Structures are given as structure tokens and as C-alpha cells.
């Protein structure tokens, strides 16, 4: 039986997280401080979106390092579910945050807040530009990896990065328009538009993340489209549907666990059967990044 020795250098300490994310943590701190000093809700919304995005990456880092240290002891099937539990908490915070932003917006509209000062608008524009550059950089790196890796490995990540970039672009256009507008009322409405766009994006992505986390935690069956893709891959490896006695699949974070029970021909040499199954596993694991394929011979 294999035993993995835990590596204490992989423990996710506050120091290790700080050093891995010092740039993002610094920016989030600055944005949050500026938002608390500002009367501008758009600045608050941008800071919230940046904090949510950074929190998501930090939680992923924590779960990954926890996996490297604790996998032998408690998480023998990996820390995917731990990651999803952390995502669940973040998703709830995002949804709550989006409702809070919308309530600020409603109060602004009903109370008719005075237009933000020019320096406030310029600061918001600068903060928005930094966020936009950061998200553009993220999108570029995910797009690049998606191009290099065939199949559905980075499809979800690319979709998230794209929607984040588009939302930030729309918000930045509105925020810039408010800074250059001569009419303060137009400036005010542009700021509100930016806040509304970000609040809606936070709500939708939070709700989406929440739903995925819940389905993952309860071992819900996979969607029909993913199951159909996996059946297609089996056919590519010349495994007929009659040969497959059973197939069970579940997500655990970004890991896809697939358990296949295949009817093997007892008249064939065992070594040939094992080689065929090894090729099948290789094919599936190549096409699906982070797939954990277990094959049982019936």
C-alpha cells in the first residue's frame, strides 16, 4: 500500500499566502481604503469585485497547498470538496455584497446624492483602469493555456475570465465617461450604471458559484452534455456501449472522478486487456485535465 509522507513546507500559512499574493493583497487593501474614504459607489463596487476575484484565487491556493500536505491523512480523494466548501462561503458573501451594493444604489437614486467630486471620479477611473489591466492579463494567460490544452479543460475558466473582463470593461467605460462628462448629472448616472453592472455581475457569478458548489458537495450527477462527451471519447477508443457495464462520475472541485466498469473478454490474454484499459485511461486523462479515471474489470 502506498503511503505519502506529509510535507510540512506545503502547509498554507498566512506568510506563504501573503508572499504568493502580495501584489493583489496590496491592491485590494488600497482599493478598499479608497472606497471607504470615497462617496463614490462605483469605487466601492470595483473594490468589491477585485476583492472577490482575489479571494477566489487565494482560496484555490489554500486548498491546493492543503492538498499537498494533508492528502495522505484526511483527503485521500483530494481537496476538491474543501475548495467547493470555501467557494460556497465566498459565493454567499458575493451574493450578500451584491444586494448591499444594489441597496446603496437604490438609496442614491431615492435620496438624490450629490455628484461625486472630480478628484473622486478621477481616482475611480484610475482604480478601474488597474482592475481592467489585471483582468485582461488573467484572460490572456487563461486563453493561452486553453489554446495549448485541447478538450474542455480550461473552458470554464476562460468563460469566467471573459465575463469578468467584459463586465470590467463596461464599468470602466461608464466610469471614464463620468469623469470626462461636463454635465454632473450624466456623470452621476454613469457612475450608477457602473455600480449596477458590477453588482449584477457579482450576483450572477455568486449565484452560479453557489449552485455549482452545492451540486458538487452533494455528489450530484453530471450534466448530460459532459456525459455525452465522455461517451464519445469511449467510442473513439473503440469501447462499445455494450462493453461498459457501469459508469459513475462526480465532480470534486476542478477534479472529475470517473469510475468505469468494463466487461472484459476472458478469452483474450490478460496483458492485452490491461494494455487496452491503460490506453483508455491515458486517452481520457489527456483529453480531460484533472480527471481521475478508475477502471474496474467486470
Amino acid at each position, binding site marked *: *500500500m*502506498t503511503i505519502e509522507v506529509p510535507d510540512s513546507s506545503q502547509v498554507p500559512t498566512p506568510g506563504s499566502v501573503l508572499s504568493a499574493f502580495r501584489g493583489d493583497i496590496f491592491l485590494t487593501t488600497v482599493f478598499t481604503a479608497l472606497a471607504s474614504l470615497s462617496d463614490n459607489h462605483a469605487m466601492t463596487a470595483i473594490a468589491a469585485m477585485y476583492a472577490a476575484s482575489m479571494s477566489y484565487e487565494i482560496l484555490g491556493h489554500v486548498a491546493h497547498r492543503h492538498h499537498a500536505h494533508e492528502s495522505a*491523512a*484526511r*483527503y*485521500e*480523494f*483530494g481537496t*476538491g*470538496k*474543501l475548495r467547493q*466548501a470555501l467557494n460556497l462561503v465566498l459565493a454567499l458573501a458575493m451574493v450578500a455584497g451584491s444586494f448591499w451594493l444594489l441597496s446603496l444604489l437604490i438609496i442614491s437614486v431615492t435620496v438624490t446624492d450629490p455628484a461625486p467630486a472630480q478628484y473622486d471620479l478621477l481616482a475611480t477611473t484610475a482604480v478601474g483602469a488597474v482592475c481592467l489591466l489585471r483582468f485582461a492579463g488573467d484572460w490572456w494567460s487563461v486563453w493561452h493555456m486553453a489554446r495549448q490544452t485541447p478538450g474542455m479543460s480550461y473552458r470554464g475558466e476562460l468563460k469566467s475570465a471573459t465575463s469578468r473582463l467584459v463586465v470590467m470593461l463596461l464599468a470602466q467605460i461608464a466610469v471614464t465617461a463620468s469623469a470626462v462628462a461636463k454635465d454632473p448629472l450624466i456623470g452621476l448616472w454613469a457612475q450608477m450604471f457602473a455600480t449596477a453592472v458590477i453588482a449584477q455581475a457579482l450576483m450572477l457569478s455568486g449565484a452560479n458559484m453557489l449552485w455549482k458548489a*452545492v451540486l458538487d*458537495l*452533494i*455528489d*450530484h*450527477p453530471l450534466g448530460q452534455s459532459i456525459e455525452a462527451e465522455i461517451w464519445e471519447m469511449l467510442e473513439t477508443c473503440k469501447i462499445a456501449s455494450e462493453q461498459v457495464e457501469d459508469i*459513475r*462520475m*462526480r465532480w*470534486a472541485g476542478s477534479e472529475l472522478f470517473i*469510475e468505469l466498469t468494463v466487461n*472484459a*473478454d*476472458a478469452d*483474450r*490474454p*490478460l496483458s492485452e*486487456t*490491461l*494494455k487496452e*484499459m*491503460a490506453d483508455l*485511461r*491515458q486517452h481520457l486523462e489527456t483529453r480531460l485535465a484533472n480527471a481521475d479515471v*478508475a*477502471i*474496474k*474489470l467486470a
Partner: protein
Amino acid sequence: MRHPSPEQKAKEKAVLYTSMADLAIVIPMFGIGMATLSLTLLSEAIRVALMLVVEVYTLIILRAAHRDQLRQFRFGTYKLEQFCSFIIGAALVASGAWICNRVATTVLTGELVATPMGLAMAAIISAINTTINALGWYSMAMAAERENSPIYEGQLRARKIKFMTSLVVQTTITIAALAHDPLVSLWFDGVGGAFVAFLQVTIGVRMISEALPDLLDHSVPDDFKARIADGVRLSGVQQNQVLNVRTRRAGPRPQVELTVNPDGCDCLDDLRRRKQALRQSLQDGDDDMDLSVLVDLPRR
């Protein structure tokens, strides 16, 4: 869709009638609690309501399982139940904390928010609740045999705790209603509310701590791992032929995955015999684990 058997229908009816009885009492508890602002009654109403949610989702899952509507959950529905428990546990902790805050604020300000008539009504509704709990516990205790199943024993224990809790609540709220001194009323109402809040937080924390290891795919406890090791030894399969063991909790049927070495097997039938020996030794007639025996495949 499969039709449930008469025994399954009887179980569903038992859970349904219990839930209906609890619903019948929780609505007036909430109504009178909010009208009278009695802390004890409000906190007890919240606790009963959240426990009622447990009964309702149990009934939903029970009905779906009896009609084979949850077949698509290939790894079982226990994680679904544990997630519901986790949510309810979190709600219990949050509401318990809220009630503690209310009790502390009310007692520190010294203002009695519930009127004497309100406290009297709260005491009456609490008495009805106590009677229902007493009858429920009594009927279960009379039906109990010398040796009962663990589930029945668990239910009996839960009913007893419910009855004892409602007795404490009844005592404090009755004293609060009968006391002439408003300060005494305030303190006893506060004590009753604090007691229920403490109970809620305790039950909530226990529900969360029981659900989390299953939801996070923790490996099985050490005694279960020892049982797996004994099973492998008794199967006759060599220790070095079992290359890897992975486990994860899934309630009463944890998932166990063994990877065996095909070395020494000349044909598929030899491999099947090796797997069968492991299966028989580990499961030994009980279906208390989701066992998968894999064969180690060569990697390029």
C-alpha cells in the same frame, strides 16, 4: 416510477403525521410568540420550526427513494441529507446567536416587552407543546422492545430530549407568567430564552460537525481503516498485492477503493478470484461499504 411497498408507505405516514403535529403547534407558537414577544416562546418556536424542516426534507427524500426517483445519484443520497443538515445546523447557530443577543439586550435594558397576558398565553401554548412531546415520547417508549434498532433508539432519545427541553421551557415561562414582580418575569423569560438558545447552538454545532467530514470527503475513521487492513489480511491476498487504498466518508456506506496488482494472475479469471476474495473478506455479507476493487494499469 416504482410503487412503494406497504411497509414503506407506513414509514412515510409515520413521518408525515409527526410533521403535521409539529406544524400544527409551531404556527400558534410563532403567532403568539411574535404577538407577546416572549423570548422563551420565540426561541422555542424557532427551534421547533427548524427541526420540522429536518422532518420535511427527510420525508421528501424518503418518498423519492421509495419511488426510485433518486437513482441518478450514483454515489448515494447521504451527502444530500448531510448538506440539508449542515444548512439547518448553520441556521440553528445563527438563530441561537440572535436570540442570545435579544435576551442580553432585553435583560440589560430591564424592559419587559411581554405583557402578563402575553406571558400567560405563551405558557398555555407551551403547555400544549409539552403535552404533545410527552405523548410522543410515551407512545414510543411503550412501543419499544428490549432490543431495538439503532435508528429507533436514536429517535427515542431525541423524543426524550425534546420532552425534557419543553419541561424546562414550561417551568420558566409559567413562573414568568405568574410572577407579580416584572423583574422576576423578565429574568425567567430571559433564562428560558437563553436555555433554548444555548440548546440551539449546541445542536447546530453538532449537526455541522457531523455533516462537514462527509461533505468534505474526509477519509474514514481509523477503526474503519483497521477493519479494511484486517479484511485484506484475512482475504489471503498478499499485502504487496494491494497497492493503494482510498476511502471517503459517505454516511453509513463509505466509499472504499482498493487497487490490486495483477502480478501472478495468468488470466482474467485469476484476477476475478483475487478481487472476489477481497470483496468477500471485507464485506462479509454486510453491505456497509461502497467497495470498488480496481486493477493497477501500466502507465506510459
